């Protein structure tokens, strides 16, 4: 029994996931004590629905981070996806086609990221900073520098409702579809990361690129795939925001790449690569959303909100760093 626990604790990234879970519970309870509506069923349903988008971008960003890279274009791809999807729909394109086209364009950005970082070995921070600007530019241009009209106005109320329910307003087993979509993707990608060759290669590349290459890992292809996964997740979030608003907003997804980093890192994904679990990202996303939700529910000033969020991001990782270096409780290994 004790061995079993030890075994589990030794899984790379598991400790981070557990830390995040503890933090999550604490935050949830604290807010609940301030405003007991936090514990209400409706609020919990909302929480799961809202965290879904952070979970998705967290998954994408985690894949990229585990290879030791970063994707700053996530937020822009979310916005681009929402705008492309909505623009097409308001031009009367059938839903499925609109979704596919949007996915395609999103994946192109992911592909370019992969080429730049994987093949041309550009620093990922810069490469994806570039595509971040480009994707946002496309979001602006696609409907001529304007937000789109309501999608139902062209698609018709039924079609519009269908789409909106599918991605945001509908429920399955009493829980919003948004959550189920994210959860399904979470399961699939957890499986890929934990149980497949690609997943193992992702850890290997994040740990040592050169050694992986000499072991026959096609590191360029692995890096490309992580950026495609990240773009895929971002596109789905774009659908969700589009369904939520019933229209495309050019600024949608702003800063989401950072929330993705936060979700991953709070959940124990190492931004230096080689380590992390999507289970942690799940906790991280939920923690982040609980924080946002709670601060909103208690009506905290935005200034206070920022400070609390900043402090929590730092603390989450600091704890982890201190525990790892063993100087949380002792004074050893200074410098």
């Amino acid at each position, binding site marked *: 029994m004790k061995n079993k626990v030890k075994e589990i604790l030794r899984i790379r990234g598991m400790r981070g996931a557990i830390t995040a879970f503890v933090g999550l519970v604490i935050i949830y309870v604290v807010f609940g004590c301030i405003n007991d509506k936090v514990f209400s069923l409706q609020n919990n349903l909302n929480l799961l629905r809202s965290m879904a988008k952070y979970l998705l971008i967290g998954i994408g960003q985690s894949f990229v981070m585990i290879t030791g890279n970063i994707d700053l274009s996530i937020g822009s791809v979310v916005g681009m996806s929402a705008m492309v999807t909505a623009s097409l729909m308001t031009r009367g394109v059938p839903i499925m086609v609109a979704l596919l086209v949007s996915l395609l364009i999103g994946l192109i950005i992911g592909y370019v990221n992969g080429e730049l970082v994987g093949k041309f070995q550009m620093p990922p921070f810069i490469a994806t900073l570039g595509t971040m600007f480009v994707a946002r530019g496309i979001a602006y241009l696609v409907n001529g520098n304007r937000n789109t009209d309501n999608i139902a106005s062209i698609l018709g109320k039924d079609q519009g409702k269908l789409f909106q329910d599918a991605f945001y307003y509908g429920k399955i087993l009493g829980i919003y579809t948004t959550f189920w979509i994210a959860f399904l993707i979470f399961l699939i990608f957890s499986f890929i990361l934990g149980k497949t060759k690609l997943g193992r290669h992702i850890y290997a590349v994040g740990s040592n690129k050169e050694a992986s290459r000499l072991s026959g890992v096609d590191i360029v292809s692995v890096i490309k795939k992580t950026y495609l996964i990240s773009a895929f997740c971002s596109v789905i979030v774009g659908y969700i925001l589009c369904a939520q608003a019933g229209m495309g907003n050019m600024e949608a997804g702003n800063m989401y790449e950072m929330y993705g980093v936060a979700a991953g890192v709070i959940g124990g994904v190492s931004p230096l690569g080689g380590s992390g679990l999507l289970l942690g990202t799940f906790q991280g996303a939920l923690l982040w959303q609980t924080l946002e939700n709670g601060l909103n529910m208690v*009506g905290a000033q935005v200034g206070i909100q920022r400070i609390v969020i900043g402090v929590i991001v730092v603390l989450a990782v600091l704890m982890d760093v201190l525990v790892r270096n063993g100087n949380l409780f002792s004074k050893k290994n200074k410098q």
Partner: protein
Amino acid sequence: KQDAKDTTAAVTEGTTAAGEEKATEEKAENSGETTVKADKPYKLALITMDSLDQHWVTLNEGAQAEAKLVGVEVKFMSPDTKDDSKQIECVNNAVAGGVDGIMIAANGPDAISASLKEAQAQGIKIVYVDSPANVDAEASFATNNKQGGKTAGEEMKKALEAQGITKGNIGVISTNASTQSTVDRDNGFREAFEGSDFTIEETQYCDGDAAKAQTIAENYITKGVVGIFGGNEGSTVGIGNAIKASGDNKIVGVGFDKSDNIKSLIQDGYLLCTMAQNPDVMGKMGVDALVESLNGKDLKGETVDTGVSVLNKDNLK
């Protein structure tokens, strides 16, 4: 309090009928009395587009002051940035938080509608302040932003013509491309120049940052524009400062919203005028309407155009 006097003075200059109505409301506030009393200590939520713009902060202050008098609680539950998705979640949170009524300034009138309908389905009363959405509500106290933009354009045109200028380029600076109210102002402004020989430049965005707006305005001035329009507070301050720095007082600057900075730029003659709204009044009227409707009164979805008033050097004195 000086603020309030300014607006009263300005309102007499105002063109809309709503102006009059507002003036009377305001007197009530000034005397620290209110005509409305809450039957129960209702819990209300105020959700503006964001929680940072001075405009929203003032609106919130108006609402909070009134809430105290009326005996209700107003929770300011706005998103930190202008973001449809975040605003929708704020509405969801308010619903989950068990409020009785929501006052909202819709960032995207379409975007927010579905979640407002959900709120109404739970028996929550909705009142619009500043910017309505596309769902029927108890009442609406909003600015017709397009009309406001048009008024701004007309003022600029008048001033240019007075200088004998009938053609040339005009710059436009706004906060961002995706907030409906500022987009409406932009469109209204352009409408005022339809059919004239003026060319309106591509709108440039400053994200509410006055310094960035100033840099953009400086570029417009270098290019040789005859006038610049600012769609919100930050842009307007930036334009005024740029005109001041250029030393070319012939360039006509017209803006939107009012603040200390804008007022002094107008008084010093760097800006021609600004389109002032009265957010504190909106806040107060919003609270009153929500309380009345919760008390059981049917407001029949009355929409009050709170209007904009033109603040210029003359009526600022």
